[in-house]
């Protein structure tokens, strides 16, 4: 199918009609595949439990607007405001740990790119090996270590491991090499700027588009992280939103009302990410390109 769609044996406009039509058809069908589940989630979050079971699942009901408002109301108040608490936790874990982690990775990657010193490649290769170590393989030993120092079931148990992004160091090194010219560092030196100050005033600014990309990567991996909080946390008030909704969904059979909250919560929880993603898409492309080519 794909071959036929892409085949344009004839030149010029004849390549047009059939190939164009086939291409648009493929993309159109898959647009439905990608968007219908999200659309369904939106529709479902505007329904009461009764309407969810009875009415057509892909369109609104006459009372959708008021039901949506009511659903949102119970979502934010259920269990003493657990859901807003979870959203806040996810935002703090992802933005603070992601932001700090990005700066630390940038410092390290910059140093590995701009200074020659003994053991540089050994350090870089060790960190690069870290990219291939699956995060889930680390979760269990991390739990054992944290339980020895009494830090399981705390904010730090999720926050601290989230700071480390070996992939960020790898990307930073590439970006620093390509976007911070040695002459500028040398010029700063001649002006009497210390090395650390040069990094924070000059280099970090030149690397900033790349840093946004690294931040996005880390933000998403922390936001999506499930295994680490699942293992580390027992206290509901520390949960990120993913673990919280998972927890609610496990109780749906006992408390059917929770099903509505799970669906509304799922919908509300993806809005901030969707907005952030789509508006920052440029940075994704740039970053992914650099990661893929080098």
């Amino acid at each position, binding site marked *: 199918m794909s071959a036929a769609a892409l085949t344009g044996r004839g030149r010029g406009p004849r390549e047009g009609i059939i190939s164009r039509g086939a291409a648009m058809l493929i993309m159109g069908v898959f647009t439905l595949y990608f968007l219908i589940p999200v659309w369904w989630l939106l529709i479902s979050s505007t329904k009461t439990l009764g309407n969810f079971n009875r009415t057509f699942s892909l369109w609104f009901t006459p009372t959708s607007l008021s039901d949506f408002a009511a659903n949102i109301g119970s979502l934010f108040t259920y269990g003493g405001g657990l859901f807003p608490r979870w959203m806040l936790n996810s935002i703090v874990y992802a933005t603070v740990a992601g932001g700090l982690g990005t700066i630390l990775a940038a410092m390290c990657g910059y140093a590995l790119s701009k200074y020659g010193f003994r053991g540089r490649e050994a350090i870089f290769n060790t960190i690069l090996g870290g990219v291939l170590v699956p995060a889930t393989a680390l979760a269990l030993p*991390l739990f054992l270590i944290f339980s020895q120092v009494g830090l399981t079931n705390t904010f730090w148990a999720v926050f601290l491991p989230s700071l480390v992004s070996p992939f960020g160091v790898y990307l930073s090194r590439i970006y620093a090499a390509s976007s911070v010219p040695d002459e500028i560092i040398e010029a700063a030196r001649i002006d009497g700027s210390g090395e650390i100050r040069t990094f924070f005033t000059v280099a970090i600014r030149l690397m900033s588009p790349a840093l946004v990309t690294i931040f996005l990567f880390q933000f998403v991996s922390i936001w999506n992280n499930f295994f680490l909080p699942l293992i580390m946390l027992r206290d509901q008030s520390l949960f990120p939103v993913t673990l919280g*909704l998972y927890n609610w969904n496990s109780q749906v059979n006992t408390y059917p009302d929770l099903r509505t909250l799970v669906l509304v919560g799922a919908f509300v929880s*993806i809005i901030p990410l969707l907005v952030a993603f789509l508006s920052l898409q440029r940075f994704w492309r740039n970053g992914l390109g650099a990661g*893929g080519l080098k």
Partner: protein
Amino acid sequence: MSSVATGVRNVAPSRSKKRGGLRNKRAVFLLIAPFGVLFLAFYLVPIIYAVWESLQVIHRDGTFGAPTLVFGGLSQYALVFQNSDFWASVGRVLLFGVVQVPVMLGLALLFALLLDSPLLRGKRFFRLAFFAPYAVPGVIAAIMWGYLYSPSLSPFKLLTSQVDLLSGGTVLWSIANVVTWVYVGYNMLIIYSSLLAIPTEIYEAARLDGAGQFRIAWSIKIPLIAPALVLTAVFSIIGTLQLLTEPEVFKQFSSTISSTYTPNLLVYSTASVPNVNLAAAFSVVLAIATFILSFVFLRLTQRKAVQA
């Protein structure tokens, strides 16, 4: 410091670099140490700790003796390789990977090539629409698809009332669909951005030679973006072996998913028994297997690229 810098100004670059290296030791240390300490604490130490734990066994003096941890050599690893649940779970993710990774990357490549071809209108829209699922966390995507698959709640009752998508025989592919749905757009974007980096003059020449879009895609574009394809393949392989979130959520929808369905679920359930030492051995074997697979794949594809 500035006097040193002025002294350096007029000497040959190579010498200045060398002297700079010594002078900058402190700076290098300050720049690397913060990440280094955290990397040590939350990557290297856990790995070493897991290996150490996996070499211990619990020893009891008689049936009622107090349990003590003693060095057991590789005996936990012997248990790992004798464990039939372990092999079943490994077999399952391998089957999953052999089918899902090529399908997902094939689709991603097709979409990227279409986006890069002159055949399409509304490229921006398609790019956004296809990438959007990546913003949905695995847990949420799994919950959502869990309802979409359910025989009684799905909007696609015509299908789900005929075929039980959550039964033992089909649920693995239902999970594969969730993973594909989330990650196709992400991989598409990686491939697409490397397509954009190809200079367009190359196509002009091919066009003058009478090559059509398909020919250009097959003979020029795909070979040139091979590095991006390798990268996406390696990350997909790592992701497949780590499969955990989606099956864990699907347990809530389907009783056919056992607590040992994937290697990572096996680690989790073994650790909650609790048999920490065996769980650590599972983790170590899994990490090594991931490492080897990614490495072998990188090697194989690199050799191919050199031969071509």
